[in-house]
């Protein structure tokens, strides 16, 4: 009798174990694709659905946004607008006009200008457009700042104008986030639905799931050391990070990062990184991308005010590491520290 029980028990363990393993193998493997565009890398990891085709289509959508917004492609709407600076309004597409309006609305957030697509003449002085880095003189910065203000750009219906002949716009601080908006809109319509899609576009994440996952663990990169400082738990969202640790140059022991504070014309120095989480709603990818720069350029008290204002517009939470390396969060999120990362 006992032998029979033992045999049955052993068979049961083997059986259940094997079935569990087969089932775990049956869940579709994610398909990860990597593309290079917009001077950065686009990594897409899709699980379920027609994953490889979805990845390629998302890349195609990003290429279309690049073709519309690029500072470098002569045929883009940005280049046409820049080429007509000082020559009166030109017609632009409705999509482009909407993107410009989103940029302008972030610029007006909170009053003080800490995001400005018109600051590109100053960024160019520092060499961030050509990658021939240099420290411009105070006089150079002061004179460029005059025509690098947000009021240089006037958008009316489907026409846009740059007032000063030397004014230039660069949508590099919002185009990647906007690409995620376009991708998210497409993903909603795909059939069959993929179970999960993670898009990483040069510091901007799109977390999308068919089942509206609520427990994504998003690691926050340690701005100075290896690995992560911890993670936050989020639902489906856009997650935009601005940091001083990837694009910068150093001269005489000072770090000059690529994010120029439009109010001073100098690289922002108050923070090491700012991560802004926004809800999956239209234009929130673009808004989060731009707001990342706003939080990055602001001090702690301004950040608190900004959060109170933007939390009504879809900002879920913000993770901050200030210049001294102190970590903090704004909103109903918790940074869970990982000791060994």
């Amino acid at each position, binding site marked *: 009798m006992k032998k029979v029980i033992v045999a049955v*028990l052993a068979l049961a363990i083997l059986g259940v174990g094997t079935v569990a393993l087969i089932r775990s193998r049956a869940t579709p493997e994610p398909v990860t*694709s990597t593309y290079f565009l917009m001077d950065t890398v686009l990594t897409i990891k899709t699980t379920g659905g027609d994953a490889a085709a979805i990845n390629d289509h998302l890349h195609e959508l990003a290429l279309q946004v690049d073709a519309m917004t690029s500072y470098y492609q002569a045929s883009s709407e940005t280049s046409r607008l820049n080429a007509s600076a000082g020559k009166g309004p030109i017609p632009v597409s409705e999509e482009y006009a909407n993107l410009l309006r989103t940029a302008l609305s972030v610029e007006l957030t909170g009053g003080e200008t800490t995001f400005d697509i018109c600051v590109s003449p100053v960024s160019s002085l520092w060499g961030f457009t050509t990658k021939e880095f240099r420290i411009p003189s105070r006089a150079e910065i002061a004179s460029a700042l005059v025509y690098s203000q947000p009021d240089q750009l006037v958008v009316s219906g489907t026409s846009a104008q740059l007032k000063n002949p030397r004014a230039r716009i660069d949508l590099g601080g919002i185009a990647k986030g906007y690409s995620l908006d376009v991708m998210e809109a497409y993903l909603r319509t795909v059939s069959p639905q993929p179970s999960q899609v993670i898009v*990483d576009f040069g*510091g901007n994440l799109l977390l999308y799931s068919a089942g509206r996952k609520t427990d*994504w663990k998003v*690691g926050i990169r340690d701005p100075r050391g*290896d690995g992560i400082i911890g993670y936050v738990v989020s639902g489906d969202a856009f997650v935009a990070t601005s940091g001083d640790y990837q694009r910068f140059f150093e001269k005489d022991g000072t770090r000059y990062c690529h994010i120029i504070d439009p109010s001073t014309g100098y690289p922002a120095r108050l923070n090491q990184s700012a991560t802004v989480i926004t809800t999956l709603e239209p234009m929130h990818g673009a808004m989060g991308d731009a707001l990342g720069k706003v939080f990055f350029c602001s001090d702690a008290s301004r950040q608190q005010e900004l959060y109170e204002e933007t939390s009504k517009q879809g900002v879920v939470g913000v993770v901050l590491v200030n210049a001294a390396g102190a970590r903090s969060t704004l909103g109903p999120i918790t940074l869970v520290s990982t000791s060994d990362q």
Partner: protein
Amino acid sequence: MKHSDRITAVVLIVAVALVAILAFLVHGTQGRTAVVRVDGQTVRTVDLTSTRAESMTIQGVLGPVDIATDGRGAIRVTHATCPDQVCVHTAPAKSPGEQIICVPNHLVIVIEGNRSDIDALAQ
């Protein structure tokens, strides 16, 4: 302990061990290899379990990229001819999913395997 009890114990332990071995064979070990890709094509895989530091030069789209392991499970770009040096500034990669990217060279170093602790990295 009776003789039959001992048999019972042995049979059950063997059953559990078989499942464990099967699980290992199916899923294998993960996260100990760095894969170097240029334009999406794998050009090198690097064993990160080796305790010997290793250096290599990979030909990128723009020019040579020098890569080194530290013998303690991490890999980094030590030298590249790209203008922005973002790859050289990137901290060493060691955990599954971590990447080092050189855009001008279309080069990606990624640590293979799924990390169990996070789904995505904000950086």
